[in-house]
């Protein structure tokens, strides 16, 4: 267990740099990062490069009537201006559906504030900026569609040829009409969070002699960028080559294409290297955010506290373009009941297109929103039952073999009970007293909170998060391992993947895995690029399992090849030669086999036979699409987590101080314990931000706060010490038994903190983030409560068509024809 103030410091043990799996090897990029010499994408410069800037629509919804770049093109120092007319290939791109124009075209429509309209390359940034001002764009403003509930109404005119509904999902499990004697019903609203990675988007585009383009950039998924770029540039994939530059954080915000195609277009148009980089305001406008959500829940239980049914409705605002919305809503719907055993579940989820900023991936990917909802409901249910909230959760904790709302059996291990018990048993922090110094009270020294007006509260947040890609996606990761001799004739391994290191520590883990499997200290990582096959995205808690699995597989194959070579030289009988691992081992740079009387240096094997060069692709067990009732084996694995939060609230100001956070998490096998700790602490801090301060405020489609002055991030003074209780239960299907660890705690920190505030102040908080005003002013029903007509449940007999006029009735076309409440399917039935 790691207690507050007890971060296990490894000290300056240099041997740890060569550590194998299981120990806290330091980051191999650490020395360059602390020396200031690590090159981030926006540090890249080449002689003669041009500077690019992007012209963006100031309107949430407008027709582009005319673009005149004549004056801009004529300006001294301007090398090129590109617009939609200059896109040689497919005019649109997108992660799942290519529905987003590279530039809003003349005659077409710009659908959000910040949508790109043109881009300029000039000799310096200032000239580029002046050129943007010289581009004349005539807009015809159109009525913006900014209310997601209106967007879901089929009578609302579509704002895009693909319509206003990205995806609508119906999940029916068990008897969807089931109810219980004790019920709690409420609505919740979650605001829009930004990934706010610290290094803004940047890339360097280099035109290539073969007519293609090389791009060095910060991204999460090189191959997805490459494929989208190639399509829009009208180039074959092999002429679009990407190399990962230093990435300063990502958290989902670099999963989508932003500046990649613009930079490449300008490099190809000018024949010069082009640097394209955003500042913070442009970063806020350019990448998709976390989906804001409105949610309605009804939890039904027996009087003893056994959950009978969960009904939920989720409306997510996807903003102007699809991004990963279709996958996000699937996560929200399938996780809506939380880590609990619920025999009867009905969830209706929809994610819609509006003229708000596009939303896509952010750490947790649809799950943090519903975790806020289901955890609030569990507390309300505990109150209604007169039960302890921990006891209620333990009573209903799901476990291996139980059925999830998708009808899948929980893949083992999933220690939900253990994580809850662990946080509940952790010692509580000492109470605040009159002697607590002002800086340790809510608001810190500046607020001078009156100790008599401070209330303490404790809350719990428990959640589960799927790992890796779902719903039948062919999820793969490739690694190449080369064993060769270095200049001094010593053997070394070069590990090459396209896995994006964004800060999470894959470079550390990859080295540990390769050293473990190869029995070799000298392991170097080649830069991540598209010269090797895809690693998939650095997202979905997947890279340790997936690219880690690929590195392991390729390392094992490399060892096999070495042993085969040695075995071949021994003229063994064919049966023995076919299984050289029975006789020989590679360790510490030598192949030995006492039985066969062999001892040969790896250097000699490589000198005699040349380098060993193997490439292997790793896949997890296949998943399957859901049927029309949301049933199916759609997720491959899960991790669970529980947070306990302790807060102090100043009743006069509504300021909150998070006193302590305890986290128990299902971590599988920890390959690098300090990396695990760093990931869960970072995830927890982001959950704290969503609970208390982080919200992109969007009014009539306009983003109001595009700076760090008004989009607030937690500081060292806001984030309390975190106690981590790792629950180590190896995942049998995973390499070394690992589990992805970065996402689960982001989802559970927020509801735990909100619950602790509720406990402190005795208010039903339905809106996240919780703002000071929400704690001291009378509840504003328009803010706190979703309108009653969002209740998807016809009370009494079913009347599907006339119920709410929001297009979310059970009879919605396109989502199959799931049964109404009066005609429940058999448990787990398929249509």
């Amino acid at each position: 267990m790691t207690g507050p103030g007890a971060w296990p410091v490894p000290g300056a043990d240099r041997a740890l740099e060569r550590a194998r799996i299981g120990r806290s090897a330091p980051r191999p990029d650490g020395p360059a990062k602390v020396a200031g010499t690590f090159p981030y994408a926006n540090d890249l410069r080449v002689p003669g490069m041009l500077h690019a800037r992007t012209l963006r629509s100031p309107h949430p919804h407008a027709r582009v009537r005319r673009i005149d770049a004549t004056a801009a093109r004529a300006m001294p120092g301007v090398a090129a201006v590109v617009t939609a007319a200059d896109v040689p290939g497919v005019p649109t791109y997108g992660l799942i559906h290519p529905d987003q124009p590279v530039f809003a075209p003349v005659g077409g429509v710009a659908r959000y504030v910040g949508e790109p309209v043109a881009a300029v390359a000039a000799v310096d940034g200032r000239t580029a900026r002046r050129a943007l001002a010289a581009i004349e764009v005539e807009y015809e403003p159109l009525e913006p569609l900014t209310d997601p509930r209106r967007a879901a109404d089929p009578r609302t005119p579509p704002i895009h040829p693909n319509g206003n509904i990205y995806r609508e999902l119906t999940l029916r499990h068990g008897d969807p009409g089931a109810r219980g004697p004790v019920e709690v019903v409420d609505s919740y609203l979650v605001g829009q969070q930004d990934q706010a990675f610290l290094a803004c988007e940047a890339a360097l585009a280099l035109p290539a002699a073969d007519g293609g383009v090389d791009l060095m950039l910060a991204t999460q998924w090189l191959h997805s960028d490459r494929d989208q770029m190639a399509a829009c540039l009208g180039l074959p994939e092999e002429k679009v080559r990407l190399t990962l530059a230093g990435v300063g954080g990502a958290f989902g915000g670099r999963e989508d294409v932003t500046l990649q195609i613009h930079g490449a277009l300008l490099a190809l148009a000018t024949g010069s290297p082009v640097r394209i980089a955003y500042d913070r305001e442009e970063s806020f406008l350019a990448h998709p955010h976390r989906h804001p959500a409105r949610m309605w829940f009804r939890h039904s239980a027996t009087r003893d506290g056994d959950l009978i049914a969960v009904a939920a409705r989720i409306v997510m605002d996807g903003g102007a373009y699809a991004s990963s919305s279709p996958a996000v809503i699937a996560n929200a719907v399938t996780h809506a009941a939380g880590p609990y055993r619920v025999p009867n579940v009905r969830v209706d989820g929809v994610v819609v297109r509006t003229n708000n900023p596009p939303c896509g991936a952010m750490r947790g990917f649809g799950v943090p929103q519903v975790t806020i909802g289901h955890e609030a409901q569990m507390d309300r249910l505990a109150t209604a039952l007169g039960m302890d909230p921990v006891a209620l959760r333990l009573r209903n904790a799901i476990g291996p073999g139980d059925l999830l709302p998708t009808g899948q059996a929980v893949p083992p291990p999933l220690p939900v009970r253990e994580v809850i018990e662990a946080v509940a048993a952790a010692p509580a922090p000492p109470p605040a007293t009159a002697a607590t110094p002002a800086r340790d009270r809510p608001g810190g020294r500046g607020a001078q909170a009156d100790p008599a007006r401070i209330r303490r509260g404790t809350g719990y947040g428990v959640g589960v998060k799927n790992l890796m890609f779902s719903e039948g996606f062919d999820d793969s990761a490739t690694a190449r391992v080369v064993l060769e001799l270095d200049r001094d004739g010593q053997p070394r391994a070069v590990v090459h993947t396209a896995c994006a290191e964004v800060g999470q520590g894959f470079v550390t883990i990859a080295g540990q895995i390769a050293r473990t499997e190869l029995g070799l200290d000298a392991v170097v990582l080649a830069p991540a690029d598209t010269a090797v096959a895809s690693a998939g995205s650095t997202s979905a808690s997947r890279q340790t399992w997936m690219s880690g699995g690929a590195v392991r597989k390729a390392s094992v194959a490399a060892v096999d090849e070495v042993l085969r070579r040695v075995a071949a030289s021994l003229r063994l009988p064919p049966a023995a030669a076919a299984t050289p691992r029975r006789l020989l081992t590679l360790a510490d740079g030598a192949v030995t086999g006492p039985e066969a009387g062999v001892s040969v240096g790896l250097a000699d094997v490589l000198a005699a036979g040349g380098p060993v060069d193997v490439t292997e692709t790793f896949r997890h067990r296949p998943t399957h699409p859901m049927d029309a009732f949301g049933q199916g084996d759609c997720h491959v694995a899960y991790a669970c987590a529980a947070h306990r939060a302790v807060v102090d609230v100043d009743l006069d100001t509504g300021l909150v101080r998070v006193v302590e956070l305890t986290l128990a998490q299902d971590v599988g096998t920890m390959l690098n314990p300090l990396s695990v700790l760093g990931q869960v602490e970072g995830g927890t801090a982001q959950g704290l931000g969503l609970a208390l301060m982080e919200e992109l405020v969007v009014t009539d489609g306009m983003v109001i706060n595009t700076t760090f002055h008004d989009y607030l991030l937690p500081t060292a003074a806001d984030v309390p010490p975190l106690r981590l209780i790792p629950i180590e239960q190896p995942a049998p299907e995973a390499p070394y038994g690992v589990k992805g660890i970065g996402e689960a705690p982001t989802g559970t920190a927020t509801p735990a903190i909100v619950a602790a505030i509720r406990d402190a102040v005795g208010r039903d908080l339905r809106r996240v983030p919780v703002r000071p005003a929400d704690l001291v002013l009378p509840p504003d029903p328009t803010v706190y409560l979703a309108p009653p007509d969002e209740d998807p449940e016809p009370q009494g007999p079913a009347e599907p068509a006339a119920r709410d006029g929001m297009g979310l009735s059970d009879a919605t076309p396109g989502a199959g024809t799931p049964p109404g409440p009066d005609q429940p399917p058999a448990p787990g039935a398929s249509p």
Partner: protein
Amino acid sequence: MTEIAIKITVNGRPQEAVVEPRLTLADFLRENCRLTGTHLACEHGVCGACTVLVDGAAVRSCLMFAVQAADREVTTVEGIAAPDGTLSPVQAAFRDCHGLQCGFCTPGFIMSLTALLRDNPDPTDEDIRVGLSGNLCRCTGYQGILAAARQAAPGPAEA
């Protein structure tokens, strides 16, 4: 625009340039001196990623003009290791304690902490938290950074 000739000592080396008055110290360091270890994450004084020492005081180089640093000593993250490349105690502590993930905030934290520990070699945890609360980190949740600060603090014996 009137340009101004300035001389700034950066990491012990005199740097002369003719600059526009509106050039920030951060841009001077990054573009003119090619010292890209000083990072920009907000460019308006909130994140602390651009922190450098000017005559020993920690300042946000995005909020200071290069001309204001004329005839002063500026130290950036590239200038605090020993001449042979040995990392400073603060740098080494960040590396050893997992005080960084993406590392983009790290130079700013290192410079803030270097100034903090010089003024207060034996800080309490609260002193460190408050002292570093002007620097944002999005990755770590700060606990590894606080551990690095504790390890790097010389302590009362050397105070």
